């Protein structure tokens, strides 16, 4: 994930041998991830669009419970010094505009980059022939425009790799516990409302 934009170094396009085990772990995590997404129904257009039409809350339930469990575990491991966080740097120009464009695509395509891989595994040909090609073209278009965007709009309102505990300058758990409680409350409310 290191930024390497200097032109004197050669472009890395081959895989060093020592990375093979890392690649196999990636594959194993992917198989587990894809298995779970399919079992949850998140590899289906109907389920994803149902979420965006607010008629089927499966996707939100999966995401919120993953964030709840993941957050508590990752912050516990961070407190123990086992892992380091890797929050992405952001800006208003980057995350708001990019997020909204992504959202439009999310609704029009009915899959996102992770679930489209799952949808392809599930046999969705609209995902394989239309959606995948579209994502590749859209990514390529961004790569072509990147030099003109990176110092301008993408840096507008930049706040760096901030996390909420650092933003409020408090102990991690002062944020983790209330966020966990809010997620539980929201899930409880969704169930009570029969959604």
């Amino acid at each position: 994930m290191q930024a390497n934009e200097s032109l004197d170094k050669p472009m890395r396009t081959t895989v060093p041998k020592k990375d093979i085990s890392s690649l196999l772990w990636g594959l194993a995590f992917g198989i587990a991830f894809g298995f779970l997404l399919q079992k949850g129904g998140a590899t289906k257009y109907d389920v994803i669009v149902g979420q965006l039409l607010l008629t089927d809350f499966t996707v939100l339930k999966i995401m919120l419970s993953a964030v709840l469990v993941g957050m508590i575990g990752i912050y516990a491991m961070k407190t123990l010094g086992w892992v380091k966080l890797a929050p992405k740097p952001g800006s208003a120009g980057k995350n708001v505009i990019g997020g909204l464009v992504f959202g439009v695509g999310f609704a029009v395509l009915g899959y996102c980059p992770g679930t489209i891989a799952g949808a392809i595994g599930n046999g969705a040909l609209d995902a394989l022939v239309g959606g995948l090609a579209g994502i590749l073209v859209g990514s390529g278009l961004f790569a072509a425009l990147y030099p003109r965007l990176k110092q301008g709009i993408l840096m507008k309102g930049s706040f760096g790799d901030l996390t909420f505990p650092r933003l409020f300058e408090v102990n991690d758990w002062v944020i983790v516990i209330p966020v966990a409680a809010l997620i539980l409350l929201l899930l409880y409310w969704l169930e009570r409302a029969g959604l």
Partner: protein
Amino acid sequence: MELLTQVRWSPYAVGIGIGILSWLSFLISRKPLACSTSFAKTSGMIERLFSRKKVDLKPYYRKIGLAVDWQWMLVSGIIIGSLISALLSDDFRWQWVPLSWEAAFGGNPLLRVVVALVGGGCIGFGARWADGCTSGHGISGALQLAVSSWISAICFFIGGILTAHIVFTFIG
């Protein structure tokens, strides 16, 4: 074994599973679960087949690198994992047009593919612009309490909910 052949699991069981998976990927691979950069790499790799020099000079591809990496294998693994799950539960179907699409817009595969292409274009462009997708920002970034990820995830859903309602209410 019965568990593996079930068509659907509770979304909470799935979410808890993904949450635990995120612990393991942080612990073992030191990486968050994320997907969308791999699509940009693939796009660059394909373009590189036709114009190697031009692609090698593009700053974005120099930034992300064009090698098959951990995340690229993760995305490939998702295809395999989903296929295994679908086959075990007899839920695998070749399908051009999803059911709810057909109910609203008819069963023409060409229309569906063209719209999926356009939607995919927005996804690819928007994910690169926002520097992440529903997994990288929506799950991995959100669980790290990253400000960039919460803003992105909320905007994914604002854009998605508005667009879905417009498309299905006014066009469908």
